[in-house]
Structure formats: structure tokens, C-alpha cells
């Protein structure tokens, strides 16, 4: 009773069911985007690494094209990327509104960023270990799936942790153009209707999500790292 009164005094404009809904939308966008970014980023990172000079699939042309794509998409500010991708998103999802519509932009914005981290992680894998695997008769798939990815896994996980935190802030930006979620709530309900308490609560919710993601990421990284 006391507690409810306090909440009503200090946060008079917060509608808790709306807040819950917005949080779920943010989580939905973040989790799906992180999963897709993980897969696409590893694919791009592996391509960058393997086609680089002196590596398994050394190929100047493919390396240059992938590197250019990654660099271009990494450099476009996210808010502009969303706008640029409107036709693509409407074609893919059928609408420009709602959490699902934010996903293409989120993944395309985050995957190149993550791909560079994947590439750095892969470069840290000891060349001697790759050579040892080759000397045992490993083929390229063995080397990718039994050496490169497992040996760089702590780096890949700590990279996706950083990326997922960036993704949460991207979802907030995506919210501004109608994707829903906590960013949307803070902007429309909080800022535009001058309800600072709503902005405050939305911020707290985002911070909690970020802390939990960071904690999970650190925990997995520690668990995996046997160096």
C-alpha cells in the first residue's frame, strides 16, 4: 500500500502495463537482432579473415569487396541507415512500423561492426595451431569448425556482448521512427508529452537490460576461457 502510494506520488504518469509491453518489444528486437548479428557477423568475419593474405582462402577480390561493404555500413550513422533502408524493409517485412520492421536495419547496422571484432578474434588464433592441424591432415572445414571458431570463442562472445549493448541503444533509436519499445516510450510518452518520470523509468529499464546482457556475456566468456 505504502509502496503503491509512493510510486503514484513520484511517478504519476507511468503506466506499468505499457512499460512492460515496451520492455518486451525492446527485448524481442534485441534478442532476435543479436542472434542474427552473431551468425551474419561470424560469416562476414570469417570471410574477411580467410580471404586475407596468407590465409586459407586467400583472395584479394573477395577480401576487398567484403572489407568495403563492412566499412561502408559500419560508417553510416544508424539513424540514417534506418531511413536509407526503408524501401528494403517495406519490401522484406511489408511494413515500416513495429518491432519486426526494425530488425533488418538493426542487423545490417550491427553485423559489420561485429564482423570486424570477429576478424580480430580470429587473427589472435595461433598460426602454429592451425599449422599443427594441417600437419595432422585436417581439411578446411575441420580448421574452421574445430580450430578457428572454438579457439576464438571467448573473443567472439565478448565481442557479441559489446555488440548487443550497442544493439539495445540502436533499438531505442529505431523506436523513434516507430518501431516501438522503450526508446519509443521515452520519446513519445516521455519527451513529447513532457512526462519526465516516464523517460526516467524507460531509462532505468534499458539500463537493467544492458547490465543483464553484460553480466551474461562476461559469465560465458569466463566460463569458456581456458588460456
Amino acid at each position, binding site marked *: 500500500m505504502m509502496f503503491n502510494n509512493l510510486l503514484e506520488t513520484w511517478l504519476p504518469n507511468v503506466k506499468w502495463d505499457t512499460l512492460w509491453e515496451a520492455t518486451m518489444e525492446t527485448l524481442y528486437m534485441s534478442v532476435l537482432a543479436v542472434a542474427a548479428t552473431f551468425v551474419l557477423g561470424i560469416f562476414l568475419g570469417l570471410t574477411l579473415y580467410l580471404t586475407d593474405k596468407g590465409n586459407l582462402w586467400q583472395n584479394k577480390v573477395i577480401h576487398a569487396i567484403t572489407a568495403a561493404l563492412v566499412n561502408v555500413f559500419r560508417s553510416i550513422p544508424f539513424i540514417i541507415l534506418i531511413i536509407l533502408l526503408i524501401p528494403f524493409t517495406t519490401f522484406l517485412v511489408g511494413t515500416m512500423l513495429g518491432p519486426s520492421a526494425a530488425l533488418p536495419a538493426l542487423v545490417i547496422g550491427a553485423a559489420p561492426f561485429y564482423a570486424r571484432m570477429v576478424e580480430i578474434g580470429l587473427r589472435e588464433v595461433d598460426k602454429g595451431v592451425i599449422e599443427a592441424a594441417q600437419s*595432422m*591432415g585436417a581439411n578446411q572445414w575441420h580448421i574452421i569448425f574445430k580450430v578457428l571458431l572454438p579457439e576464438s*570463442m571467448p573473443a567472439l562472445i565478448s565481442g557479441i556482448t559489446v555488440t548487443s549493448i550497442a544493439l539495445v541503444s540502436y533499438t531505442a533509436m529505431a523506436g523513434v521512427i516507430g518501431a516501438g519499445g522503450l526508446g519509443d516510450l521515452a520519446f513519445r510518452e516521455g519527451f513529447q508529452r513532457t512526462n519526465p518520470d516516464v523517460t526516467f523509468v524507460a531509462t532505468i529499464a534499458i539500463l537493467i537490460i544492458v547490465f543483464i546482457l553484460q553480466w551474461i556475456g562476461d559469465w560465458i566468456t569466463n566460463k569458456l576461457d581456458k588460456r
Partner: protein
Amino acid sequence: MIRLQQLSKVFQARSDSIRAVDNVDLSINTGEIFGVIGYSGAGKSTLIRMLNMLERPSAGNVTVADWNMADLSGRRLREARQEISMIFQHFNLLWSRTVKENIAFPLEIAGVSKQKRAERVEELTELVGLSGRGDAYPSQLSGGQKQRVGIARALANNPKVLLCDEATSALDPKTTDSILDLLTDINKKLGLTIVLITHEMHVIRKICHRVAVMDGGKVVEQGLVIDVFRNPEQDMTKEFVKQVTEPEETLDALKDILKSSENGLVVKLMFLGEDAEQPVMTDLIRTCGVAVNILQGKVSKTRDGSYGTLFVQLQGNKEELDKAWQYLQEHRVEAEVLNDV
């Protein structure tokens, strides 16, 4: 088992080219432990890496077992590599895998079933003396234990040949010896052909049957280890032999004695065989009437016999000394006078 013919490797650097291996001919017998020794940059690593095509030759032939290695590629090369294992100076274990999982790695590659893998891993852990450490990660092992994992891993698919690239260079002397003992053991037990490269003559002396000395990409001398010890031809070989036959500070220690000629003749004697020096010394004293002062001595064991170096001081008058010298010549003891009288 292994035959190298006119083998060369040229690295193309930006401006000039480096002949890392230059026209090498070698043949290595089945069941033999063959050593290659040379200083840094001599081309040893490049040579051994051409045996399993980690490095492609620029010219010449490599035959291992019945494979003409340079002709192999793709699947056939990978199959051949399962029979030509390698161990490394820095072990090159996967840190994300436990000891057991590291040893299982080549078995996974060869497509061995899970059940058989577990049995084989158990056997190998035992063979290399790591029973009980199977679930440890490489980071929890000492250097010597890591190399044991490397050896177990290399033996997993029952190879015909084991290549060792400076396998003991990162280890302390005691651990080095235990790894060398393990290699000797494996060689005897499994009849495995071992090629090892090193810059330490101690390694060659302890376990090799034959040795080749490399310099500037060329093999400058080769033969049975005991022969090379007894009769090194090249200056470089002599230096390597000195690493093990002469105690390190010998010349420093003898410096004062060498300075004054009053002290008589200072002679370095080289003996072959366990007890060869005994009768020679006794006779020298009895028949020539010289006094013999032993200054320094060291016996080195090779696989095919021992080999000793003795620094002695012979004292007596001119006549006696001449007689002693002649005696040594007649008895075919290799002797070298270190000071002039």
C-alpha cells in the same frame, strides 16, 4: 623410408630471394632416429616442413614411405599427413581442449568412432605418462607435460614417421632429457622413424643414430653420430661437437697453465669407447717416464658407444715428452697439443 633428392626451397622476398634449402640429398632409413643440426637460419625448419608439404619445394623430390610428396594434394595429401606426424617447439596445442580432447583431435579428423577414440586416447595418455591429467587444460600443464600431449597427439593415428621441429628447445635440460627418453622409447617400441632438428648437440648425442649438419641451406656433413663425434670435418661440426665433449669453461680454466711453458705439454686427447683411456694412460706413464696430470675430462655417451675428451699435462724432459708424443701417435689416440714448448 625418406628420400630427399636435389631438394631446394627459395623464398621470394621483395628485392632478393633467399635460398633457405639448397640442393639437399638425404636418405633416412626405416626405424632410424635421424638428427639435423645447424645454427639459426640454416634452413632446418624449412627442410623438415617440406617432408609433410607444409612448405612446397621449389625444386627436387621428397619421397616419404611410397609417396612422392610433391605430387600429392587435397585428400591424398591429407591422408599421407596422417602417417607423417609432427611435434613443435611451442607445442601448438588447442588451449580450448583438455588433454584428452587434444589427443582425440587427430582421431576426429581421421573419422574414428567415438568409442574407439576414447580407448585410443586412454592408451596414449598412459604411453606418454600423463595418466590422471587427462581432464586438465594445456594452461595447467608444464612445458614437458605439454610436449607429452603433443607426442601423444602425434602418435594417435599410428604414423610411420615423426617429425620433431626443435621439440625440446623450449624445455629445461632435465625435462629435455625426459622427453628424449620418451622419444627413444617410442622409437624402440613402435619402430617409428624419427626426424628431429635441433641446435643442441646434446640432443643429437643422446638419441640419434645418424646426423646431418646444415649450414646456409646446405648439408655440409653427415654420418653416424659416433663417427661425426670422433672425426668432425667441418669447423662448424667441430664447434657443435665441442658443445658436449668439452666442459664449458675448459679453455678459460686452462689459460693460466697454457701461459707458461715450464708446465710441460698440455694435450687434448680424444678417446673412443668406454675404457679406452685406461691402458693408454698407464702405459704412457710406465714406458715414457712422463708425469701425467689430469686437468679436465668428460665422457659423452652416444647411442653407439662413448666418446671421451681428456685434457692432460705431460711433464718431463724434452726427450721424454717426444717419446710420449710418439707413443700417442702410434696408438692412434687423437691428440692435439694446446701449448708450444
